[in-house]
């Protein structure tokens, strides 16, 4: 282990410890946070930001590492949330002790997520580039339709599904325990980060990177790009399902919104805003986005905006309009995203544009 790795490791541990200490402190950043960090409202928002960061991190592995532009990632997030909720409900009153049921439910949801990822991945990876994006979007749309259609009352339709707390440990239920949920979210982010790091440093990760740069060459060497891409797809999707389970516990329920195409596109916006070039870009993107979204919504309802003339008031009161425009500007003028900023400022040069996969159908 050389000095740089050691410094990164120590820095990472310190950062996690600092984040873990937040619920015990009373830090108040007016304008950014709705209240001091020990209050449940703020912790809820921060935990949500951490989960979105974990989700964005899993998406970055797919898009940034392997160059797979999936538009169906929300499907797996929703599968995690809805899967766990439905499994817990299916157990109902059970002879088993509650902790066992809880753990078994998580296990079942993971297996479900894995199966779904393997099925969708093996089908969608039969095409490449832009077609892959469209196909994953179609599958995600099917999931979204299923959830809304509410087959035999399993998903709750437009109402969403609420968490059946019978078998959920008491430490994770209720407003008073928001700090435990916050720590759970932080734990999920750390686990997702470690798995992503492990995959990226593994042999498969290097092959995935090579596929992103030039799939034909990888094929020529005698490796099978399909297998590696499928592996990355499955790992990223299962991680998304894990983040989805955290979301269910945090929100004590799931709404059909998380399965929509809009949510997937938002995820893409997060990753690109943060910068596909670096892992921390996705994390920063997820946190910045969540806080921005929350604050913009609050700002949109404020008196200052309401007093503006219509030409300014209408666009400014729509957070997605601001984010969409911001996104277009970042793609046009800041190809590295937020993560690319320090490098650009340091060297004054434009980083090489990211072009993970030539959109030529094989």
């Amino acid at each position, binding site marked *: 282990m050389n000095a740089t790795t050691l410094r990164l490791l120590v820095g990472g541990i310190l950062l996690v410890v600092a984040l873990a200490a937040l619920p015990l402190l009373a830090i108040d950043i007016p304008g950014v946070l709705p209240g001091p960090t020990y209050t449940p409202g703020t912790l809820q928002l921060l935990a949500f930001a951490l989960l979105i960061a974990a989700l964005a991190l899993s998406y970055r592995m797919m898009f940034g590492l392997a160059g797979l532009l999936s538009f169906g990632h929300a499907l797996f997030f929703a599968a995690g949330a809805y899967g766990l909720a439905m499994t817990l409900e299916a157990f109902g009153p059970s002879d088993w002790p509650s902790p066992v049921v809880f753990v078994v439910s998580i296990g079942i949801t993971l297996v479900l997520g894995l199966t779904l990822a393997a099925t969708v991945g093996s089908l969608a990876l039969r095409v490449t580039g832009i077609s892959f994006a*469209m196909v994953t979007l179609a599958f995600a749309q099917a999931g979204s339709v299923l959830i809304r259609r509410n087959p035999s009352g399993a998903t709750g339709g437009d109402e969403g599904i609420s968490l059946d707390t019978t078998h959920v440990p008491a430490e994770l239920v209720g407003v008073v325990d928001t700090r435990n949920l916050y720590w759970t979210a932080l734990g999920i982010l750390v686990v997702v980060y470690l798995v992503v790091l492990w995959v990226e440093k593994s042999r498969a990760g290097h092959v995935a990177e090579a596929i992103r740069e030039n799939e034909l060459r990888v094929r020529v060497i005698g490796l099978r790009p399909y297998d590696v891409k499928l592996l990355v797809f499955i790992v990223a999707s299962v991680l998304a399902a894990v983040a989805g389970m955290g979301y269910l516990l945090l929100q004590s329920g799931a709404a059909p919104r998380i399965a929509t*195409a809009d949510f997937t596109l938002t995820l893409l916006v997060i990753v690109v805003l943060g910068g596909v070039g670096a892992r921390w870009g996705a994390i920063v993107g997820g946190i910045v986005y969540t806080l921005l979204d929350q604050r913009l919504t609050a700002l949109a309802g404020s008196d200052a905006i309401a007093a503006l003339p219509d030409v300014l008031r*209408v666009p400014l009161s*729509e957070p997605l309009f601001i984010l969409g425009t911001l*996104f277009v500007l970042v*793609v*046009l003028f800041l*190809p590295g995203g937020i993560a690319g900023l320090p490098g650009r400022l340091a060297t004054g040069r434009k980083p090489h544009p990211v*072009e993970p996969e030539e959109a030529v159908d*094989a």
Partner: protein
Amino acid sequence: MDTLVLLLVTGLGLGALYFLVASGLSLIYGLMGVLNFAHGAFLTIAAFLGWEAGRRISDGTWTGLAISAAVGILVGATVAVLTEVLVIRRLYERHIEQALVTVGISLAAVALFEGIWGTDPIYTDRPEWLTQTTEVLGARISNDRFLLIACAALVLGGIVLFLRRTRYGLIIRAGVENRHMVTALGIDVRRSFTLVFAIGGAAAGLGGVLASVYYGYVSAHLGSVLLIFAFIVTVIGGLGSLTGAAIASVLVAVLQQFANFFLGGTGDLVVVVLLAAVLLIRPRGLMGKAA
């Protein structure tokens, strides 16, 4: 029998809508490899402005509808050309980023439409004939289906004639086949790309006005819903193939109607199953070129 005819014609009407969106998508993709996520937004803005114009001049009459259609086509084409020239062209040859930019535009546009026209659907008035039905082989079919089918057939015919009979059409067809070769011959493909955007935008604009006739309302999400089916149609038909888009539009829409009727409202799911089947058997789509 009458049920079959009804489902078939209704499916054809819906397929007409899909085709109006998918034709532009497919041509744009075929020529430059750009997946245009903003295409749904072109459709929605054309539907809104077309509806506003038609309503103000003559509500619920044929004149009003004609004005709506004209405004819709014009708006669709203008917005599409502006998007291409101002945003997409700047990212020349960077396909993924071109697609990303259109994602941003579509998100921002839908939010803006919601800000201006609200989140609830706005119900539109139609000429009386369109609200009535005609009996065909014992099936009572809404007259608006015939209008949709006729318009889509006209657009298909028009685009095919344009592609086959004009010099620009020749360049576009050649560009879809092999863009680099056409560029090497000294022809600026980018200019025909703008033209394709205009055509695609115009078709989507007409689609928007017709969609508001078909559904009976205009809403900020009109385009997003149709766009996803247009994507599926484009993949099934084969990217870049106009004929493929036409065949797949009809196939998808008719299948959707039949599944909705006979298989308990599972139309949307059956379409995705069809997509999965096509991917398994023929990943390049029905009329797609071999690699």
